[in-house]
């Protein structure tokens, strides 16, 4: 590797080629490969386990599967999704997850976009203070809100004997409404912060020109700002999607009974007890994992953009 150092830089070399010429080493290659493999094996193990017959899962490790690949079966998937016995019927919870996720993403993103526009382009007194307050809320652990918010839903809000908000008295499937509201609340601070970052960087003269042409704030928001920040909204929507779909705490706390909880919440309890049914967990787990993983892989570019805007700047 030291012989490489003497070579002069070549014209048309990319940054990567140049870096490789200066610093490449066998040890670094091996180390990178080892980390990449170590990080991949656990998920691969889960997938292999999920397509093995249940008796095999109970008796031997997943690596034994490769001695008999013909034993692959989707039986466990079939069971956990559709069986009416205990540990099955998760299709219901999968639907809960879908029903929770769609508004759980749309509502906070829409409200955050409106708030971020007001905070970046409408002049009013106390704007900075309000923004700093929302910015600070980002870091407040949602654990601070759990107990009072749950009692707010179940008992309403009373101040000194005066009822400000009656109890919601939701039951059955309708408890999902609570989960929607909770996700909307907890998703707002980060979404507002990220969108504010993007919107503030839009060129001011574009807004000014629209104002002079007589456009109102709501028209500017809809016709100028929203189209310009669509990529940003996409990355925030992906964030929120992953957060809601993968959430355990909110769904478990506000999701009512087991039949109305999202998939992750039910799986979390199943994994916690690790009872006799644990052989079904690989398949059930993989069902929960595969959708966000696909979204994540296909839309990684947007996700990374949001990540960098949120963390490197902040």
């Amino acid at each position: 590797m030291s012989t490489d150092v003497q070579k002069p830089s070549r014209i048309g070399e990319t940054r990567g080629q140049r870096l490789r010429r200066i610093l490449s080493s066998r040890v670094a290659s091996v180390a990178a490969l080892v980390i990449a493999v170590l990080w991949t094996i656990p998920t691969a193990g889960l997938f292999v386990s999920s397509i093995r017959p249940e008796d095999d899962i109970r008796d031997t490790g997943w690596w034994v599967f490769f001695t008999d690949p013909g034993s692959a079966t989707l039986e466990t998937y079939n069971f956990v999704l559709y069986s009416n016995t205990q540990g099955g019927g998760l299709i219901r919870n999968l639907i809960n997850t879908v029903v929770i996720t769609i508004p759980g993403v749309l509502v906070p993103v829409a409200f955050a976009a409106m708030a971020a526009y007001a905070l970046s382009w409408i002049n009013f007194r106390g704007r900075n203070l309000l923004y700093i307050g929302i910015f600070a809320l980002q870091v407040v652990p949602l654990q601070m809100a759990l107990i009072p918010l749950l009692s707010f839903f179940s008992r309403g809000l009373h101040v000194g004997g005066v009822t400000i908000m009656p109890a919601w008295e939701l039951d059955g499937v309708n408890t999902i409404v609570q989960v929607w509201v909770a996700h909307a609340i907890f998703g707002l601070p980060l979404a507002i912060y990220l969108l504010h970052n993007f919107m503030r960087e839009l060129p001011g003269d574009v807004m000014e020109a629209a104002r002079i042409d007589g456009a109102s704030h709501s028209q500017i928001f809809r016709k100028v700002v929203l189209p310009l920040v669509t990529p940003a909204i996409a990355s925030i929507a992906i964030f929120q999607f992953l957060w809601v779909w993968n959430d355990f705490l909110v769904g478990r706390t506000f999701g009512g009974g087991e039949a109305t909880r999202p998939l992750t919440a039910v799986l979390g309890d199943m994994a916690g007890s690790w009872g006799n049914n644990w052989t079904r967990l690989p398949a059930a787990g993989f069902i929960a994992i595969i959708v966000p993983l696909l979204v994540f892989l296909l839309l990684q570019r947007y996700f990374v953009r949001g990540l960098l805007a949120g963390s490197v700047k902040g």
Partner: protein
Amino acid sequence: MDISDYTDRFGLLAVGLVAFIAVLLALYGLAELASRRDRSRAVAFVFLAPAVLFLLVGLVYPAVRTIAMSFFNKDGTEFIGFDNYTWAVTDPDALQVLTNTALWIIIVPLLSTMVGLVYAVLIDGRKGERTYKALVFLPMGISFVGASIIWKLIYEYERSGDQIGLLNQMLVWLGAPPVNWLLEDPWNNLLLMVVLVWIEVGFATVVLSAALKGVPIEMIEAARIDGAKPTEIFWHITVPSIRSAILVVGVTVFIATLKLFDIVRAMTGGHHGTDVLAHNMWDQAFRLGNDGRGATMAVLLFALVIPVVIYQVRNMRRQELEAR
């Protein structure tokens, strides 16, 4: 699985979406009305009202309530002063929770940032860098619960016969007896942390790898010609150039670690000496029915992020001043 199971849920979804669209249209109409009269304060109010209302009712008011509740007994009927806090710092179980949390918030951010940084440097400019990055980044898309299932499978223990968990099988291959990992206090804590590190390293890698692209390559080349070793370049050029990104990663992982609930819940349920603040808070309030102690744990959690809040706000104000 009845057909009504489907119709109930999708029916609710349809009603919810229609209601949401109606609210949006109403807000839009109001904003339009206010805009025509050119009242920017009124327009700002309409744009901000839903978000601010949600945050006030769902975050600000509950946070204040939680602080108040931490001074009350388990069902909130009797004022007991600082008793809950005394419990939190004297009771052996509660102390264990605090010690574990301290270990988590030190070890996980350090380890995730370090591994992420080393990996980002190793793959920087390498052929197939994107694939390398994607492989390690992938766990970011997996839920904590999913990750817990994945790792519980790895830690699985069988008293006799074939091992199912990869970790114990490796011990057996090496000729050692298998270990019931999740029961081994204090090592089980470390094994739980491994799960979070596995997830967060991907985040660290992506952010730090983006920051690395800004390190001037001429500097590295010059140092190399002067005979600097790669490790020297790493410590004297790479790390100082991306210091602020490293700090951001560390702080972000710190907050995620502090709020961690799922992994502990799904892997040990907080038993065998593995409980942490965010999980104990939930356990106290929703399983053991002690709102006062749950609230106290939440307040302690909040106290730990206050320095981060202050730091972030100051940082932001400084950036704003510079931008002006």
